[in-house]
């Protein structure tokens, strides 16, 4: 099984986000970055399938040079080689354009499986994988929480709403979008980190046709969410004082205790 794993670099979960001057995105200059959570699980799943069925795991990431840190980390965890789709402003492409650029980059690899996370932690579109499947002509399944792959067939467990699940069987090649939290992600070993240095990282640039095509959706303004409730913040930064106040409020004001 040859598997391609798509991994996106996003702002660190704990980062303080500052809106940029134009109010169209965040200030990225001084941010720290990490891999989008579900993409990490996509890689882990791919490595597990490879352990069972042999083959190759190729990680593919798109973005400026800084995404090399995501690639290096994936190679250190065990991916065999990487494709870096390079460009400075690619993060703001629509999911359709993103999927088009990725399709262009991986089509000739003829993978048996393509894994992606189910949605990114920044834009959160939740579409790139599914559109990519359509562009590559592959069947797909989303919100996958278990992969049962053999040489003969692919059976996957999907999460439905409210505690329901469903198995789907489909032919390969296929594309799966993987849910977070479904396994224990391995750490990179020192040996892995050393080995990663010798692994191939191929750089490609997306065609102008894709990058320059007018976007059909565009962010007009970014802002802090309006609160739907007037929250009483208690303690003024002193958690213990807040707790004392809270107990009183729950008793005398909300009357729930």
């Amino acid at each position, binding site marked *: 099984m040859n598997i391609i794993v798509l991994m996106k670099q996003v702002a660190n979960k*704990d980062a303080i986000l500052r809106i940029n001057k134009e109010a169209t995105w965040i200030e990225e200059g001084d941010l720290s970055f990490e891999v989008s959570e579900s993409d990490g699980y996509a890689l882990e799943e791919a490595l597990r399938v490879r352990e069972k069925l042999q083959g190759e795991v190729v990680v593919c990431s798109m973005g400026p040079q800084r995404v090399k840190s995501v690639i290096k980390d994936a190679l250190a965890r065990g991916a065999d080689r990487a494709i870096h789709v390079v460009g400075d402003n690619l993060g703001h492409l629509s999911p359709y354009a993103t999927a088009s650029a990725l399709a262009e980059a991986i089509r000739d690899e003829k993978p048996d499986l393509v894994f992606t996370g189910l949605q990114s932690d920044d834009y959160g579109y939740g579409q790139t994988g599914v559109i990519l499947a359509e562009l590559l002509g592959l069947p797909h399944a989303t*919100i996958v929480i278990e992969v049962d792959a053999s040489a003969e067939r692919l059976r996957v467990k999907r999460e439905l709403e409210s505690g329901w699940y469903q198995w789907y069987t*489909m032919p390969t090649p296929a594309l799966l979008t993987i849910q977070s939290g479904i396994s224990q992600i391995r750490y990179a070993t020192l040996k892995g980190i050393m080995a990663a240095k010798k692994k191939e990282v191929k750089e490609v640039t997306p065609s102008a046709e894709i990058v320059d095509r007018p976007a059909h*959706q565009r962010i007009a303004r970014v802002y802090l969410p309006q609160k739907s409730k007037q929250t009483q913040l208690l303690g003024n930064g002193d958690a213990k004082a807040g707790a004392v106040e809270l107990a009183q409020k729950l008793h005398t004001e909300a009357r729930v205790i």
Partner: protein
Amino acid sequence: MSNGIVVFIEHRNGVLNKTSLEAVAGAQLLGSALQQEITAVVVGSDASALAQEIAAYDVAKVINAGNAKLVDYTPDGYTDAMEHVVKQLDPHLVLLPHTYLVRDFAPKLAARFGKSLISDCIRAGVADSSITFTRRIFLGKLDADVVSDGEPPVFATFQSGAYRPDQARKGNGAAVEGITVDVGEIRMTPEAPFQEVKQAVDLSKADIIVAVGRGIKSKDNLALAEKLAEALGADLAASRPICDAEWLPIDRQIGSSGQTVAPKLYVALGISGAIQHLVGMKNSGTIVAINKDPEAPIFDIADYGIVGDLFEAVPVLTEEIKKIKGAS
């Protein structure tokens, strides 16, 4: 000329997914503002009963798009069916509820038209006959207003809770039109949906819930939350990562993949407030959030909040509640 609004109605075996009515409500609001007619679309092998049910709402028409291959949901089948309908109707706007089923096929549908979705919108407004959609980005930390440029149709999905199902207005009985849609090869074979284990705990009946999130840091620290729950006479619940890590069983998970609850008091400890968690608990009576991040989205829906370390706040809260209960 592209015209009208198509709204997709989701069901399983003819049983309506209520989130569809929220999309209908959204479509009605946009329809009035844009002076556009609404066509509701039901897809299935035999969804005529549901089509009749939907005809009671204030829409111009209901289309029952049928084909024997649509007996079970598959992304291949539903994409083909909806592509057929959208091409035939040539609408301005296609609206869908942002359910797990829609997430699975709608991007593929939009891609057939060379587009993506404006997905997971929390609201939409019209000014000068152009629509602005609002969606959450960065896991709910920021909002983005999104506009659509270029040719119709525009595809958009509404997050669960964007509108209320009871906002969907009833009408005088819309016409139902049955059509047979073209469906090509279906490559995936679904098995029957199932529940993992019979849920042992039914949290929907709980009066008070103490819920823990990743902020609790380790399984050992759960004792802290247990003590608070005990003092309050509460049931213990959790966000997804806690159940994924098996620190608490899966039947204690609150949210879109787990249980939906509405206790009179919900105490969220170290939970950020991702939408998939909020949909499971936002109708609780009084909501308390303790979180060290002042920007955490959980505070958007909390009645009382403590911005600070839960490890400092919770033991004090537990003692104070014991005192109050002891005195009364």
